[in-house]
């Protein structure tokens, strides 16, 4: 077992645990936010730079600090490591910067976005973002493309986390989409005109942290905060059959995988469960799903939220 201290909380973890996983074991405010990392997707993480933390002591054996901030999702814990997350002004400043970078070209079309209310970027910008924008340039936009009747794709909202690419790679038999072009012209695309059609393609929606990939049949049907998420299961030959039904009264509006408190899907479900079982009687309903107090779904507003004080050295300098 290895000992690691994160924001003054010390915990013992198994070898191979990352800083992010260790922080999640501790829980609470010290857990770094993550946009591209997804615990169920191999090789994910390291790209968005949201979960960066400061390692002030590398290990007991080699106590030197790490020269740069490191992505907590992909950095393994060493014995005796000391990490700062919200106790480091440098980390909060870098995170504020990442939020700004992710938002400058984002359309900010939350009022018409189906992901609103369950969007990681929305939450991230609420917690770490700034009230004003310094970006005065024209935003980047893409021609919309169609990827079939099941998944609605909005390239303008994409933050290039690669999660949907890993999901397709790891859960379908043939990946049909990928990241094309490069730099800020990079986009998720199929390159040729084709519908993404596969028994497990719907999971791309569940792993998307933003509103780039949403459930097409559910599109504009309802807002998630008007719906009651219910845990339910059915016997399915293709998948675990464990899902969340998004209901209003007795009507099932949407079926998704069950997500944990970090928005990660616990069990991936097949398209039959997701799209073809919209009748409550097709399911064994277990009961209402526990919702985080921070979610608008249960409260219609944020509660018990501590907004970390974001430090702005530029502001300080100017004052």
């Amino acid at each position, binding site marked *: 077992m290895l000992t690691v201290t994160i924001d003054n909380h010390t915990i013992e973890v198994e070898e191979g645990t990352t800083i992010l996983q260790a922080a999640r074991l501790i829980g609470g405010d010290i857990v770094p936010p993550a946009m591209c990392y997804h615990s169920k997707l191999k090789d994910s993480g*390291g*790209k968005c*730079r949201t979960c960066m933390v400061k390692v002030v002591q590398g290990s007991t054996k080699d106590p030197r600090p790490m020269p740069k901030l490191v992505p907590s999702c992909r950095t393994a814990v060493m014995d005796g490591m000391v990490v700062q997350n919200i106790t480091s002004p440098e980390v909060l400043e870098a995170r504020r910067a*990442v939020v700004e970078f992710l938002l400058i070209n984002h359309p900010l079309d939350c009022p018409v976005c189906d992901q609103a209310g369950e969007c990681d970027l929305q939450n991230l910008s609420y917690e770490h973002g700034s009230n004003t924008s310094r970006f005065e*340039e024209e935003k980047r936009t893409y021609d919309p493309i169609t990827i079939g009747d099941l998944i609605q794709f909005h390239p303008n909202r994409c*933050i*290039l986390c690669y999660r949907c690419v890993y999901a397709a790679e790891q859960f379908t038999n043939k990946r049909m989409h990928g990241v094309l072009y490069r730099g800020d012209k990079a986009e998720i695309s199929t390159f040729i005109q084709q519908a993404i059609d596969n028994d497990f393609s719907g999971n791309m929606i569940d792993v998307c942290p933003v509103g780039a990939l949403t459930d097409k049949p559910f599109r504009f049907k309802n807002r998630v905060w008007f719906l009651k998420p219910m845990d339910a299961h059915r016997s399915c030959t293709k998948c675990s059959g464990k899902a969340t039904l998004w209901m209003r009264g007795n009507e099932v509006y949407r079926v998704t995988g069950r997500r944990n408190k970090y928005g990660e899907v616990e069990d991936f479900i097949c398209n039959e469960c997701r799209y073809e079982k919209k009748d409550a009687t097709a399911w064994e309903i277990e009961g209402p799903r526990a919702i985080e107090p921070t979610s608008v779904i249960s409260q219609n507003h944020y509660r018990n939220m501590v907004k970390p004080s974001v430090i702005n050295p530029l502001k300080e300098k100017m004052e």
Partner: protein
Amino acid sequence: MERKIILENIEVEGIRFLNVYRKHGGYSSVEKALKTMTPDEVVNEVKLAGLRGRGGAGFPAGMKWSFIDKKSNKPHYLVCNADESEPGTFKDRYLMEHIPHRLIEGMICASYALEAHTAYIYVRGEYKYIVGILNEAIKECYQQGLLGENILGSHYDLDIYVHCGAGAYICGEETALLESLEGKRGNPRLKPPFPAVKGLYQSPTVVNNVETLSNIGWIVNNGGETFAKIGIGKSTGTKLISACGHINRPGVYEIELGLPVEEFLYSEQYCGGIKDGKELKAVIPGGSSVPILPKNLILNTLQGEKRLLSYESLAEGGFVSGSMLGSGGFIVYDEDDCIVRNTYNFSRFYHHESCGQCSPCREGTGWMDSVLYRLENGEGKMKDIDLLVNISSHIEGNTICPLGDAAAWPVAAAIRHFREEFEFHVTHPEIVRNIKHGSLAKYINN
């Protein structure tokens, strides 16, 4: 004193052919290493030599070699980074074109030291004609038993293959290069693990620059200690400097590390002074990624000491008043060059070359490009200047690979040393809009 290691015999007619190269002592190091030395002894000599990576980062080559994971049961690889793409840098092209055997000789010794039996040379796509030259040289080596099985009867086998890229600056970053060599997009990998543990095909791999490897033959022949006596302090040996911009004699020069910048700039042997009798304004001494320095700081340090062409001297003063030796791409600006325009130009370059994988680089390079475009075209505001400094500080150190730093440093340095030019662009939009590149100086100075 002129000291030649890499470019020794470069003037000899036909030196790019094996028989001529061998007549002038070529491949004697291979004979020596394979027949009289153990791989560890070769590594040790390179360590003693203090040879630092010539691709830009300056990391000690011997140390890099010693990190190779010997416990791994996978094959070891040597990969030569010939993806020279840093603006201002064209030394490797010169070297490979004129004396390709220098590189191959070094690669055989290096592969032997690393116990690698396959080595690749990754050449940037724009240098496609070099591929033909290298392949021809490699073919000659196979014919004379210098490559293939049982090299010179030593029971050591080695194959070298040339692999050509297809246009991406980012592939000069060693892990992006490995991804590209594996037939993927040039997205840099997260480190650790470093290539020495998991590199090409997840196997232990060393990636070295062309010039670095071209030193190995000499080191094996003459010993690491002899090499370490050349140069100055921890900057041992010689360095190829590719000089360009507004000078009389642009080109590739081999200098002994420690040569004063002033001598390099003004001596007839090297740059031959500023073109058209103009005044020196600034120099980027190590390729477009490193900070630009104005005349006073490139010739002398803040302490008034002569600035030397060495890793330490160019870095003297940190980024406040210093720069870096980098890849040795020496770009010279004269009194008429516009720093804002030049900064915009490089910013556009990094924007174009960002792989787009991590958010600070993907979004930040494009943002800086846009703001600089406005400034350059007389549409900038005073607050844009601080905004640029701030964006660059948010990219620096927060990206997966050094391209983020490379994009951030030039902008920060240009504003640090030439803020008045940026302000002039804001206060005199009509002049900026109407005047073509190159003639703003007289307005600013008046």
